């Protein structure tokens, strides 16, 4: 029951926040005049009218970079637990990690050499 009590305040705060936001939007919708003209529908002061639809197809080169990035990005997950207890594990774990990173670097070198990192 303790836990529920502490969550209740959060939910109440959340409810109040949502209510204030919704009430403000609702009241302004209620009182404002509505007569749009084409000039009013233009983007106001900040930027150009958009050209073309937002959902364009990306070049496949982006995907290639993304794939290489995702792999090396996720492998960092293994470095965090190691870094936390680095002092306790000592030299042996350090050597193991060096081997692990060496294998990753080998992969990176391979991707580089085979031209996966060249923009085409």
């Amino acid at each position, binding site marked *: 029951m303790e836990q529920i009590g502490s969550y209740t305040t959060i939910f109440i705060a959340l409810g109040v926040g949502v209510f204030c936001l919704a009430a403000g939007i609702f009241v302004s919708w209620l009182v404002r005049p509505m007569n749009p003209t084409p000039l009013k529908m233009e983007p106001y002061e900040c930027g150009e009218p958009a050209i073309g639809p937002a959902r364009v197809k990306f070049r496949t080169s982006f995907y290639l970079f993304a794939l290489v990035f995702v792999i090396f990005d996720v492998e960092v997950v293994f470095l965090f637990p190691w870094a936390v207890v680095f002092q306790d594990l000592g030299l042996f774990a350090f050597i193991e990690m060096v081997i692990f990173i060496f*294998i990753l670097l*080998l992969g990176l*070198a*391979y991707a580089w*050499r085979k031209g996966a990192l060249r923009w085409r």
Partner: protein
Amino acid sequence: MSNWFILLPEIILAFTIMLVLIVDLISTSCQRLWLGVLSLVGILLTVICLWIVPSGAFGEAFLNDGLARFIKSIVLLALLLVVLFSWDFDKVWGRPLGEYLVLLLSSGLGILFLASGTEMILLYIGLELTTFPLVLLTAYCPADKKSAEGGLKFLVLAALGAAVLLFGFSLIYAAAGTTQLQALVPALIQTGNTPLVLMGLLCILAGLGFKMALVPFHMWVPDAYEGAPTAITAFLSVAGKTAGFVLAIRILATGFPVQVSEWSRIFAVLAAVTMCLGNFAAIPQTNMKRLLAYSSIAQAGYIVMGLVAFQVLGLSSILYYLTAYLFANLAAFGVVIAVERSSRSVELSAYHGLAMRSPRLALIMLLALLSLAGIPPLAGFAAKFYLFAAVYSEGYIWLVVLAVLNSALSLYYYLKVIRAIYIQKPAADAVQPVTVPLALTIVLVVTTFGILALGVYPSPIVDLAREVVVLFLTP
């Protein structure tokens, strides 16, 4: 400090993989011979180390026992022969050889870990290390639409199978609180067969079904086998299957011996359905790779019977069957590769009159197919004999009757190929003998010798398999 020496074979193979990758990076294209030689030397060193290192456990996760050693020997032999199959892969298929060998060896390394793993995490990583390179190798020629399509289907279904297996692991973990397979047994006795445990076990069985290509989960097999380069099809059919079965033996025998009555009944039904469907679907096939794919599904149905008869005799006959299957299937695929090289076709029509063009190739294909069908005195007969005897002694008489009927059925489509080779006339433009390069000849000689030797004199391997299984079942 644990005993790192036990991991030596795996370390050597991993080192070989990195070396091949580095050599591929720095060498020019004319030095490609070194890649193959390096791989072969690496595999041979791994085999030698495998028999030198003492048996024992590395931590709680890795166990180098007799069973692991037996399976690893089979897989490394398959790896060796498949590297020889693909000796001039880059010339025939026009794709780089270095990456190909790296992926092939990585897949083999994954199976080595599967054979030794006694812990869910290691088994899962080993499984994915086995599967992903095989998927990439299946789709290795993406310009060929069949290859890419087979690879994508293989990936989706293999990932689904692994995910279902993993979900089963997570449920079992939630019930037992350990990822260690030996520690599961007392924990699960304590909880009893709660719905949570049974649901986890069911998910694990389904995942294993995907890996062993049993029937409701077999859909990827024909497409992946047909799409893949033929050498990879051979590796998939032999090593991929071995990986599935060793995974099943490890998980079920180590983790769930108490629930044996639950899963052996399920496997009995799956075995029956698998062999019937595999054999019936193989009959109308005219593409050799597809025919052998369905035949391999049927063979998986026979092998699963060894899990149904979960005793010393059943498990040891699985090991013997896998050995016999390795030689017969690699011999058959060797002939398919030879014919494909000369006629650029894997259709049955390319085999018409092969006996007149290349009588020795025809004879090897005859021996391989008869061994797969289980005709004495070839390896397949002894394998089937031991397997059926094991199932019979466990009291599954209906299953044995069904299996014998299925063997007769399978003879029909194997004889269809033999008829094409020996009786039908060759096409007018195909009268040249099929040329066989040296590396392929070595494989064909080794596998033919294996088929004959295992059939005529099976006792050394049978004794070894039994000894290994007795040690495995009585810790």
